[in-house]
């Protein structure tokens, strides 16, 4: 039966699991340095992921209040807001870097 087959496969495509890392004041505002979350399947880009995270609670909303200044690395490589999440396992969020 095709309806049953669809039901079985649905949980596999409705979300993806990602490890999320936060650094510096993004970490402090979010209140966590690392977590694993189910990401909805319609969240397909870095920018959409920021928007989705900012809706979680007040801490996330504060961390992402100026989403354009938050830098993102997918699997430890910098990615712009329009970059697709693709099959990245990890996304890290942080302020502009101030090393050196």
């Amino acid at each position, binding site marked *: 039966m095709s309806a049953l087959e669809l039901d079985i496969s649905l949980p596999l495509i409705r979300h993806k699991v990602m490890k999320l890392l936060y650094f*510096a004041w993004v970490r402090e505002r979010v209140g966590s340095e690392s977590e694993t979350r189910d990401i909805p399947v319609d969240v397909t880009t870095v920018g959409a992921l920021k928007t989705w995270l900012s809706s979680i609670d007040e801490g996330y909303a504060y961390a992402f209040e100026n989403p354009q200044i938050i830098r993102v690395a997918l699997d430890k*490589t910098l990615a712009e807001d329009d970059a697709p999440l693709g099959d990245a396992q990890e996304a*890290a969020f942080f302020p502009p*870097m101030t090393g050196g």
Partner: protein
Amino acid sequence: MKIKVQTEPFDAGAEITALHAGNPAIGAVTSFTGYCRDEGGQLEALELEHFPGMAESQLTAIAQEANTRWPLQGITIIHRYGKLKPGEPIVLVVTSSAHRRASFEASDFLMDFLKTKAPFWKKEHPANPSQEASWVESKASDDADADRWKR
């Protein structure tokens, strides 16, 4: 190419000597050491946070880019993290080449890129205990410095 991210201090002189040792084709070695300033007595300590793994991979990528741009004989980058007191060294960049221009420009480039592309963040702990610690904001001048190398 030697890339290190560590809490321990480093010895700039030893790194200069090591980069030059046994290679008589080298005519020029440039080093840059960045230190924690005391900000006129206002600063108690600088806390450096980093993204383990990505810090090393970004520094390596920046060094590889320098190698494609200049004929270098060697590159050493050491970046510390953790809590550092005023006067302590934070970062070291050493480059070697046959001639001075490549060595100077590559060190300058590495520092500019490291400031804007390597995942380190500084938090200032003020000497006055009634003031809160605060994250250092990125400087527009650092972006402008990095833009000098665009091509």
